[in-house]
């Protein structure tokens, strides 16, 4: 009985995953330097819309959180907040070496060194900077991953929320901070 129900659900999920794979709406979190690689990816040379990809204005509408470049402690808090505002299923793509291992800022007092410690990264795009070809290639991978149901970062985050939260608190002390401008 249970297996049956799981199967039905799986079919439904499969169809949904097909849609999700071919309609990738992104929220770009571009406080680092990588944002400049996105326009060529969008425009006629590479045309990411043909894969159903496109930028979105708010995290509520987006499926993919694309984080380009380094993240300081301060921006990391905002990224986590944005990620939590996104709707399931959601995917995180780390863009550039800085998200991967801190890049040239590995020893900075302000920038974190690995994103997957705080958020479930489904895919990294290495390089400093990765060129549009690399972006297109990696998104092709992401599409395949989603289609196969392998991009399960959001589930991982739900299931291991404690662990992520502990890491976040270790590095940031608090995620939701107050500052004087919003008092």
């Amino acid at each position, binding site marked *: 009985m249970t297996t049956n129900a799981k199967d039905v659900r799986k079919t439904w999920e499969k169809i949904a995953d097909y849609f999700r794979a071919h309609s990738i709406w992104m929220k770009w979190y571009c406080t680092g330097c990588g944002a400049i690689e996105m326009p060529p990816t969008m425009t006629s040379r590479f045309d990411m819309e043909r894969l159903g990809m496109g930028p979105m204005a708010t995290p509520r509408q987006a499926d993919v959180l694309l984080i380009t470049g380094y993240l300081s*402690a*301060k921006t990391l*808090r905002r990224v986590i907040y944005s990620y939590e505002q996104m709707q399931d299923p959601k995917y995180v793509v780390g863009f550039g070496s800085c998200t*991967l*291992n*801190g890049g040239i800022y*590995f*020893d*900075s*007092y*302000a*920038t*974190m*060194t*690995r994103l997957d*410690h705080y958020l479930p990264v489904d895919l990294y795009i290495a390089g400093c900077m990765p060129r549009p070809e690399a972006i297109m290639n990696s998104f092709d991978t992401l599409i395949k991953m989603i289609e196969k149901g392998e991009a399960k970062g959001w589930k991982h985050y739900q299931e291991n929320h404690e662990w992520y939260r502990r*890491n976040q608190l*270790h*590095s*940031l*002390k*608090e995620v939701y*901070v107050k*500052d*004087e401008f919003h008092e």
Partner: protein
Amino acid sequence: MNSTNKLVEEIRQRFEIIDVIHPDDQQVILDIDKMHLHTLLSHLKADGFRQLSLLSAVDWIKDNIFELVYIVFNWDTGVHVLARVKLPRDNPRFRTITPIYPGAQYYERDVHEFFGIEFEGNPMSYKPLFLELWDEMPPMRKDFDPEAYSREKFPERVYVPHFVPKVEVIE
């Protein structure tokens, strides 16, 4: 060398200037005793230097001093004046210039946050500006070790070497 010369002459007459450097036609660097900085800035502001372009600090750790750098700018003549004062590195304190340049408030907060220099008379300067929840020594001091801090706070990715290249020496 005309307008700045005149300016420098005038300032020399009024204030005790330790040193003057002319890096450029339109730029003057004045080393001044910290006693005279406020009067100098007041004078400059009255003289047309309405804009405080920058207030920053330099940590001369070997000399055990902090150097405060004030850059003011005159929109009419296009002249930059950079005034430098030296402070002792232990317990660095200085008087605020917010009565002269109110905009200095944020610079002073910045300098306080990153160097730990206190500005008397600017209560706002004790509030953090950039660093959220900072609990260490001010990070721009030369004796602060950012790498150690980073190691402790931000766990690094540990790479497992999958492949060790063999090096052949070719005679």
